């Protein structure tokens, strides 16, 4: 019986794992995961009986399979975790596709890919072949074009050679016979017979045109290169096509020398002109013919490019290309033409027409006329035309391949679809199962792996259904359990809890009786609560003292043992136990311990009285859990009781406290009313020191108030003292300030006086300085006077000397005048004698008569002269007398002067002495004045210092005055403060006694 009960949960448990792991249905998984406790409990229960553990499980073999399958399934996931994110993304994308899609995709891919590849390859090869053919064909045309061009040029060469050798031109006899007109006619005829030429001319070696066909020609050919060349080489010359200076067209010029058949000398040159246009037209007419006659590609376009890269031959539709740069027309082909020696092809885009062309090009060979051309021939055909065949090929290829691919793909998809249908069905079924549609079943046919899978899915669905049913039952029980627990725990009263518990448990188990058996301290027990179906014995309040029970089971119950007895007579119980059970008509019972902190409070017992009963495991579990809940509820109720008791005790205590508090409050109120007035400044109050707790605190206030009182008293005294002292000081201070101000003023006066004094001193100094100057001048003057005096003395002395000398001279003068007087008297004697002689002579001359007359005249003259000399001598005597008289006077004067000079000398000496005295005096004065000046300067300096000092004193005295004023101000403030303080302190009432 037990075995059966326990095995099922084990099976359920393992199946749970299976279900979780197969389905990985999140919904189911979470639902099952919510029950880990019950699962463990089942496992624990299974350990109770070893034999149950080894019992082979019905689904165990099928259990192992999915498990191992699960492991395999997980490995790629782990590997993918190790791969890069990119791989993961790709992989996950591939994984996300359904199997059918994957298989179909793969099948279609595998079957169609070769066809597509084959089709593409065939198309590619064919297309390539066509392209090659076309290209080669075109290259052949290019070569042919080159040849044709060559031929054309050669023809020009031969023609001109023939022309030059015609007898009309080279045979002198014929030339002479044939008229110029007929010659020209024959040339015209030649042009008609050989189309292509537009002008033929015969030119003499000087370059003058002799003959000319219709059409213009230039006047003189002497400078034209082919002309010169043909004369020099005596051979025909063909030029490469060049632009005609006259017509402006590209033309080929051929020139040949006309050689005199008899003399062998060149007497003319024949020259032909062929427009390239002619060649062009021929070519393209041919090309058109070719196209019409069977070329399937349309009209080819022929081009020739000269050595300068210019287009010289172009199709008639594109004559405007002529003269263009090849580069401008075929930009890709043009570079290849330069120095090209072989045939080639290229697809190029015509820049003018904006159309793609397949262009074949080849160099034009050396012409036999030795002219190096360096030209290229090109054949172009629009690619659209060339590859029309190729494009025509594409559509059949594409359509054929596509149709075939679709056909094969459809067949592959159909086959895959058929092959996968059972798998898809299985998958759908599993999906439905996963969605909760558990009635889904697969129809199984055959015996292959898919059939096995199908049957396994069916088995799984069955299991799931039964599991779900069980799960629902468990949930129901859990709900029931929750309800019952809620009802039991709704009350916190022990009795209520017990009554509700038994009632609810009986209802849940639908048993006949449920009791709660409480152990007493001696391990006997009492039934404290009962719920019993009507008609059965009441067991309430029955004390059961069961010794055998006590001994054997209490410890087991303490360990949490739950005992389920389906039939008391078959459970191997002791007789006394059976008897005690039979007292209450018990047939089957279920016992669970009510535990609290590993202490056995009692037992929850369910009795089946009517019949025996096979207790279900779920019932047992529920019962056990309910017993635990009852334990919790009781525990809580007991705790609550204790709390209530504690609260009652606390309330009692708080009553005492309240009383105490009230008394304290009363005391505090008393204290406050006592000291209240202190707040208003009355310091005479005193708190009463009572016997209570506050008494001492009151005294603490008293002590503070006393201290305050003392303090206030002191402050009051101090304030009044300060007031008094300040009032006293105020007058003194005021005076001090005034005096200081006066002092400052007096000092200022002194300063002014001192300034005056300093000025005077400075004036004195200046005067002394001036005096010194004056004295110095005087001294100098005296000195100068002394010198002058000395000069004077010297002069006087000189004067004396001069006077003495003069006196000497005067004496000499006097002597000289006396000598003069002697000489004059002598002269006078002489004159007298002369006069006598003259009278004697005149007498004698008179005696001598006539002959003596002359002599008488001379004697008369001499007599006159002697009278005149005598008169002069008298005058001289007079003058000398004057001189002598004056000389005497001068001598007197001299004597007088000499005396005066001596006196003057004496006076000068005196003056000199006096001057020296003055000089000495003035020097002394100078020294004195200088010392005065020095003294004055020193005095001035001193007075300045004194001024400075007095200024400092003035400053200090001013500061003193300021300080005194400040002090006075401060004192006034102090007075105010002291008065305020007195007022403030006055608030405090301090003396009680008064």
């Amino acid at each position, binding site marked *: 019986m037990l075995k059966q009960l326990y095995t099922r949960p084990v099976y359920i448990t393992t199946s749970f794992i299976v279900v979780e792991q197969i389905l990985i249905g999140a919904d189911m998984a979470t639902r099952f995961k919510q029950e880990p406790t019950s699962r463990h409990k089942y496992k624990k229960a299974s350990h109770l009986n070893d034999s149950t553990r080894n019992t082979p499980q019905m689904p165990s073999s099928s259990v192992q399979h999915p498990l191992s399958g699960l492991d395999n399934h997980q490995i790629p996931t782990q590997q993918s975790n190790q791969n890069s994110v990119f791989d993961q993304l790709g992989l996950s994308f591939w994984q996300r596709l359904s199997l059918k899609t994957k298989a179909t995709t793969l099948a279609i891919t595998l079957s169609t890919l070769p066809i597509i590849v084959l089709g593409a390859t065939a198309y590619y090869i064919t297309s390539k072949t066509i392209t090659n053919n076309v290209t080669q064909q075109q290259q052949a045309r290019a070569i042919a074009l080159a040849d044709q061009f060559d031929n054309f040029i050669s023809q020009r060469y031969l023609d001109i050679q023939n022309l030059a050798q015609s007898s009309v031109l080279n045979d002198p006899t014929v030339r002479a016979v044939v008229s110029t007109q007929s010659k020209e006619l024959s040339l015209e005829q030649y042009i008609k017979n050989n189309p292509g030429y537009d002008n033929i001319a015969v030119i003499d070696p000087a370059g003058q045109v002799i003959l000319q066909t219709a059409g213009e020609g230039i006047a003189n050919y002497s400078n034209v290169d082919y002309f010169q060349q043909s004369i020099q080489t005596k051979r025909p010359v063909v030029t490469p096509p060049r632009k005609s200076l006259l017509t402006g067209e590209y033309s080929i010029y051929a020139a040949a020398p006309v050689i005199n058949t008899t003399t062998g000398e060149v007497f003319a040159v024949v020259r032909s002109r062929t427009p390239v246009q002619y060649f062009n037209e021929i070519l393209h007419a041919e090309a058109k013919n070719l196209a019409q006659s069977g070329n399937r590609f349309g009209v080819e376009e022929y081009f020739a490019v000269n050595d300068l890269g210019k287009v010289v031959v172009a199709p008639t539709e594109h004559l405007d290309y002529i003269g263009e740069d090849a580069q401008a027309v075929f930009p890709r082909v043009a570079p290849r033409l330069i120095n090209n020696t072989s045939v080639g092809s290229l697809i190029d885009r015509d820049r003018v027409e904006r159309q793609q062309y397949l262009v074949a090009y080849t160099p034009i060979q050396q012409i036999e006329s030795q002219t190096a051309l360096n030209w290229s021939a090109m054949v172009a055909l629009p690619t659209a035309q060339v590859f029309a065949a190729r494009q025509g090929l594409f559509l059949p290829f594409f359509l054929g391949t596509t149709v075939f691919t679709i056909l094969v793909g459809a067949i592959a998809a159909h086959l895959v679809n058929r092959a996968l249908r059972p798998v898809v069905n299985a998958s759908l079924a599993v999906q439905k199962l996963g969605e909760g549609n558990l009635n889904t079943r697969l129809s199984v046919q055959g015996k292959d792996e898919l059939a096995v899978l199908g049957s396994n899915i069916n088995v799984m669905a069955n299991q799931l259904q039964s599991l779900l049913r069980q799960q629902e039952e468990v949930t129901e029980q859990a709900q029931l359990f929750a309800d019952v627990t809620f009802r039991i725990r709704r009350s916190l009263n022990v009795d209520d809890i017990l009554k509700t518990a038994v009632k609810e448990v009986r209802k849940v188990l639908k048993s006949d009786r449920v009791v709660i058996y409480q152990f007493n301290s001696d391990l006997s027990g009492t039934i404290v609560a009962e719920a019993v179906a009507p008609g059965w014995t009441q067991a309430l309040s029955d004390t059961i003292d069961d010794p055998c029970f006590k001994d054997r089971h209490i410890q087991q119950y303490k360990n949490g043992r739950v005992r389920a007895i389906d039939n008391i007579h078959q459970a191997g119980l002791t007789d006394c136990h059976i008897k005690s059970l039979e007292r209450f008509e018990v047939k089957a019972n279920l016992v669970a311990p009510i535990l609290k902190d590993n202490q056995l409070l009692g037992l929850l017992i369910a009795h089946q009285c009517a019949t025996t009963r096979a207790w279900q495991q779920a019932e047992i579990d529920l019962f056990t859990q309910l017993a635990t809940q009852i334990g919790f509820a009781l525990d809580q109720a007991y705790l609550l009781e204790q709390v209530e008791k504690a609260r009652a005790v606390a309330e009692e205590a708080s009553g005492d406290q309240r009383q105490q508090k009230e008394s304290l409050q009363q005391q505090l109120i008393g204290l406050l009313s006592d000291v209240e007035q202190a707040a208003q400044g009355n310091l005479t109050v005193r708190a009463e020191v009572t016997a209570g707790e506050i008494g001492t605190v009151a005294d603490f206030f008293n002590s503070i108030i*006393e201290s305050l009182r003392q303090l206030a008293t002191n402050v009051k005294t101090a304030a009044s003292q300060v007031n008094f002292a300040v009032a006293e000081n105020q007058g003194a201070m005021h005076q001090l300030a005034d005096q200081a101000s006066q002092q400052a003023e007096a000092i200022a006066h002194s300063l002014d006086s001192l300034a005056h004094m300093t000025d005077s001193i400075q004036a004195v100094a200046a005067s002394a300085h001036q005096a010194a100057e004056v004295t110095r001048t005087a001294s100098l003057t005296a000195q100068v006077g002394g010198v002058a005096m000395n000069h004077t003395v010297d002069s006087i002395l000189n004067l004396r000397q001069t006077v003495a000398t003069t006196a000497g001279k005067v004496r000499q003068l006097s002597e000289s005048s006396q000598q003069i007087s002697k000489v004059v008297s002598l002269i006078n004697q002489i004159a007298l004698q002369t006069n006598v002689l003259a009278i004697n002579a005149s007498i004698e001359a008179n005696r001598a008569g006539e002959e003596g007359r002359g002599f008488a005249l001379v004697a008369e003259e001499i007599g006159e002269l002697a009278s005149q000399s005598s008169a002069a001598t008298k005058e001289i005597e007079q003058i000398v007398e004057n001189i002598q008289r004056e000389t005497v006077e001068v001598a007197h004067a001299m004597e007088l002067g000499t005396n005066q000079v001596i006196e003057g000398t004496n006076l000068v000496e005196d003056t000199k002495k006096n001057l020296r005295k003055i000089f000495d005096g003035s020097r002394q004065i100078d020294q004195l004045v200088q010392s005065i000046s020095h003294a004055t300067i020193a005095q001035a300096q001193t007075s300045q210092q004194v001024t400075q000092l007095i200024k400092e004193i003035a400053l200090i005295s001013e500061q003193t005055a300021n300080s005194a004023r400040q002090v006075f101000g401060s004192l006034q403030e102090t007075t105010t403060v002291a008065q305020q303080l007195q007022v403030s302190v006055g608030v405090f009432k301090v003396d009680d006694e008064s």
Partner: protein
Amino acid sequence: MATILVVEDTLSELELISNYLRESGFTVIGVTSAKEALNKAIEQKLDAIVTDIVMPGMSGFELCRKLKNNPDTEQLPIIICSSKDQEIDRFWGMKQGAAAYVTKPFTREELVRAVKSVVA
């Protein structure tokens, strides 16, 4: 013989203390108020004062402070004898200058020992 001033507003208590001290050989002067005690302490030469705390008007604590603030009496030892038995009371009493603190009810020995401890 040492002179002790006992200050106690309850006459029976005053009598009890006085008796105890007299019997131990001290000269005892009894007064019933702190103010009186203050006057007596200045007037007379005393060796110690035993005082109650809870008294109308000036309390024992204040008496202590007054005595300690007066230079004449600041050396005078004071024993407080009071029914106030809290630790704060004893602490405050000692702070106010008491030399010993005896809580009521007291035995003769306690009182006398306290007095003797301060009267050397």
